[in-house]
């Protein structure tokens, strides 16, 4: 976020997230704590996608798959009684990274619409794989019997408390935002932006752009995997629905709605998307009829999404 207004709005938003577990019960809407936790989880997935879409110009239509890999890894391990977070988390994030690296290595050889289709195809493969896992609940999903355990020896540490998991999610989200801002400001970020505007030129200047794109794709899959890890812990339940292609579409919409290529864009996008759908769904079952046109208006009139409204004139 370039401007002072943008910074103030972004920080205020984080403060609202921080006080929500206290505020929501006070105003008699404790349910909103869950809504805000989900917003943060999807914001994290959108943040992962934004790394390659917003900065590198790669439109992946299959990023929910990596959320699913992260969530299922935790779910399946927990199902078999392995609840140590020290084992679950690295394994889940690592597996998401491996899937993203393999799928990315193939998808990134294509461009434009083919890239969109092939990322969608890979995510559908994982979706149907999850559906076919009858041992793990198939379509009905899988209960995660207990949350990740971080106890060392006799020192007990866990995230069983609902406030604890909420704040763990918030802290990890803030860490991701910080790490991403550092990454984007560095040479890696410059090269990603260069790839978005002129890949041939970068190659002619001696940069093997494929490697950078693959690294970014893998990293973005891992961030989505981390979001999946937290999903499984928060919901206590994983299902193939998490990897459905409409989920990938929603993450894509959050990025574009919030402002592709902007640090806080995914957070704005996820907040507006999920809150709006929540509020509209209270009035009517056909809330999509209102939601759709709003999205179209934002795309047409708020260039650069919601984040774009707070940006200076010389935005890139």
């Amino acid at each position, binding site marked *: 976020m370039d401007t002072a207004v943008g910074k103030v709005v972004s920080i205020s938003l984080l403060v609202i997230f921080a006080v929500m577990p206290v505020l929501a019960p006070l105003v008699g809407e404790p349910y909103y704590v869950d809504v805000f936790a989900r917003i943060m989880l999807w914001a994290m997935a959108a943040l992962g996608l934004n790394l390659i879409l917003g900065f590198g110009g790669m439109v992946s239509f299959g990023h929910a798959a990596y959320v699913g890999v992260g969530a299922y890894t935790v779910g399946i391990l927990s199902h078999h009684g392995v609840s140590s977070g020290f084992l679950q988390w690295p394994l889940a994030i690592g597996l998401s990274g491996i899937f993203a690296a393999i799928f990315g290595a193939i998808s990134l050889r294509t461009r434009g619409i083919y890239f969109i289709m092939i990322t969608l195809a890979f995510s559908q493969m994982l979706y149907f794989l999850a559906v076919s896992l009858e041992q793990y609940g198939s379509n009905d999903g899988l209960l995660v019997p207990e949350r990740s355990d971080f106890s060392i020896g006799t020192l007990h540490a866990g995230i069983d408390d609902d406030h604890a998991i909420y704040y763990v999610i918030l802290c990890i989200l803030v860490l991701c935002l910080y790490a991403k801002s550092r990454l984007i400001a560095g*040479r890696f970020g*410059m*090269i990603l*932006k*260069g790839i*978005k*505007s*002129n890949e*041939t*030129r*970068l*190659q*002619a*200047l*001696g*940069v*093997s*752009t494929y490697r950078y794109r693959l690294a970014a794709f893998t990293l973005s899959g891992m961030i989505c995997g981390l979001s999946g890890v937290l999903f499984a812990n928060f919901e206590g339940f994983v299902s193939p629905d998490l990897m459905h292609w409409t989920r990938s579409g929603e993450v894509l919409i959050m990025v574009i709605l919030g402002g592709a290529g902007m640090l806080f864009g995914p957070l704005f996008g996820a907040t507006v998307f999920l809150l709006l759908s929540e509020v509209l769904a209270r009035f009517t079952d056909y809330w999509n009829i209102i939601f759709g046109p709003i999205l179209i208006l934002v795309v047409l009139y708020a260039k650069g999404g919601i984040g774009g409204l707070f940006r200076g004139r*010389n935005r*890139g």
Partner: protein
Amino acid sequence: MLTVSGLKAGYDEFPVLFGVDLKVGSGEIITLLGRNGMGKTTTLRVISGIIKPKEGKVCLDGLVISGWRSYRIAKAGIGFVPEDRQVFPSLNVVENLIATARPGYWTLHKVFSLFPLLADRQTIQGGLLSGGEQQMLVIGRALMTNPRLLILDEATEGLAPMVRSEIWSCLGKLKDMGMAVLVVDKYASASVELVDRHYIMEKGVISWSGSSAELSSSVMLRGQLLSV
């Protein structure tokens, strides 16, 4: 340093180059002249690996680089400044320079002393610079990759005469430092004293080559081959 021999290339089924031969030695400024559509840009693109040649060889210091991917050719020591500049519009001046930099003689400081104008624009987005500033930026960007050979396509096209002579005086400085420069520029004749050798291209082959003195003395040659 650079030897191009029997180079044939084209776009899809449409041939453009029919056997191009040229040489660039270290510390030389070489121009590639000719009317539009004769294959100058294509030649430069093949040398820098953006297009693959169909036949022929490009050697850099004895190493055959033709057919390599462009990023490997750039790493081998060729800096390419394309004709339509192509700064990275969303990166600022400093970021444009350091994003693709490789260690060597050229640093931010040295580029800024070569182009003092850029030093005053460090945090401006590349896309907001004037044409002349953008050209300086892309030359600086290519220098920051620390090449041994600098290739410029339409080095001063569309620039004001003063900027044009500034760019050429910079090329002179680079030559004095021992860098090889291969340049396509309609306005090269204004700086003939700097140029070691000219090649004139006609219909995809080199039809004439010679020194600046020979080029200047041949009024007929200039009239026939260079007028648009």
